[in-house]
Every structure is written in C-alpha cells, then in structure tokens.
C-alpha cells in the first residue's frame, strides 16, 4: 500500500489559513494595517502548506526500528515433568514431589583395623 501527499490541497489550505490569520491580526490591532506581515503571512503559509502537503507527515506508518539485541531463542516444547494446567493444589501452591527415602537396612560392616607397623 503506497501513501502519497496532497500538495495542492496543502497549498490552498495554507493560503486560506494565512489570509484569515492576517485578517485576525489586523482586526485585533496586533499588527498595523500597512505592515507587510499581512501579505507575507498568507504567502509563507501557502508555501509551507505546499511542502507539508507533499511530505504528508500525518498518517504515515511508523518505521519499525531494528534493535541491536540478539533475537529471541526458538520456543521449546513444554517438558513432560513440568506441572500442567489444573495440577495446582487447593492452596494454590504446587511443590515438587520429593523422592522416596532410601530403605532402612543393616549398616555396612566396618573394615578390619590395620596392623601397627613392626619396629
């Protein structure tokens, strides 16, 4: 989709705005009636309207800036031993199940004492 500006419409919009702004300034007494500002303002706004109308800064899609950060890693599948939806306890906490304790049996036999060295 291409977007274009409206230079002709901008020119006449600027000219119209300049004429009525000059009229406002003259009628309010802000500028003397013989001041050249009253003729420069419509001409300047007409040119400004032509330039801005051609550029058309409003409504253009913003350019997406590429960041210098590294791209995100590829997503991985959910592990099978991870908790799934609906597996939470009533308290809302889900602790991992501890492994079973080792079986209780006879302690291992102590090793024979070492003979003292002969003198």
């Amino acid at each position, binding site marked *: 989709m291409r977007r274009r500006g409206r230079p002709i419409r901008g020119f006449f919009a600027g000219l119209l705005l300049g004429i009525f702004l000059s009229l406002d300034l003259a009628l*309010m007494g802000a500028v003397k009636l013989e001041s050249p500002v009253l003729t420069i303002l419509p001409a300047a706004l007409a040119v400004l309207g032509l330039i801005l109308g051609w550029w058309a800064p*409003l409504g253009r899609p913003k350019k997406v800036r590429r960041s210098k950060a590294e791209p995100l890693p590829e997503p991985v599948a959910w592990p099978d031993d991870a908790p799934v939806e609906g597996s939470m306890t009533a308290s809302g906490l889900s602790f991992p199940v501890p492994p079973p304790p080792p079986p209780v049996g006879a302690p291992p036999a102590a090793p024979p004492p070492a003979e003292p060295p002969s003198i």
Partner: protein
Amino acid sequence: MRVIRIVVALAIVVLVPVLTASAAHATLEGPCTASGKISATTYDAHLATAKIPRTGDVHWKGAINNGGRGQRPIEGKVYVKLPPPFGRVQLAGSWNGPSSLYANSGTYHYDLPEVLVGPKFTVSGHHAERGAVVCRGSIEVQLSGSPIKNPALIASLVITVFAILNFFLALRAKVV
C-alpha cells in the same frame, strides 16, 4: 517532526520582532502645523497614537509658516496606508489648485462602521506648493471600543479555527 519544529522556531524568531515593532510617535516634517479636536481632546504631532470615537465631529486646523505670500498652486491629500501591494486609500481630505491662504480650519463630520473598531491605521498626509512637497505627517489612529465586539473579527476567528483544522487535514497521507 524535527523539520516542523525547526520551521516553527524560525517563524517565532522572525515574526515576534516584526509584530512587536511599532512607531515611536506621530511625525510632522516641514514648516507646517496641524491638529484636530474631537470632543475635548486635541490630537497633534505630540501624540503617539490617536484613539478617536467611531463617530463625531473633528475641528481641524492647519497652517504653513514658510514666510510665503500671495497666490501659488498648492496640492495635498490625506490617506490611509495599506499593506503591499495595495498601496494607499485616499480619505475625503484633499486640496488642489491656486490659493492665497497660508492657514485654514474647518469641521468635518465622520461616521465609521463598527467593523473598523480594532485595527490600527496610519493616517498620513502631505502638502505641496508649486509642485514640491513641503510638509508631510502621519499619526497612528485607532477607533475606541472593544475589538472583541467587532462582528468581522468574530467571523474571522471562527473561520480561522476551521482553516486550522483544514490545514492539518491536508497534511494527512492518502492511500494510493
């Protein structure tokens, strides 16, 4: 947006000195004197601006003190300056032809419309003798009254609001 900011800043730098500059006082050059009295107020070259009522009688008088005598061709007019390229608009006061008078006075009735309340006019005039301008003067004139009540100003402000909206609508990009 950066370009818009630069343009706005330039406009402020250029327009503020131009808009705020104003004449220091009325001017009268040459061997002439001129004054006008409206109600109890006398307006002459000593006043910077003249704020006069919208309607009234002005008792005017003028004289040239160059020591001249006898009849000679004179010419003069009073006018209001407009912005370029419109030039100037002549008012009712003008004189032309041979004259032996070196001073004159009179009463002039004026009645100006309400749409002229608010603007600042520079009223200027000159007097010439034997084809050469010997006196010239000007004074800033404004009609007394509130400019907010000027119907032309109210209409112009309303249209200005729509013109601003129209201007920003013209800056939109159109899909092709």
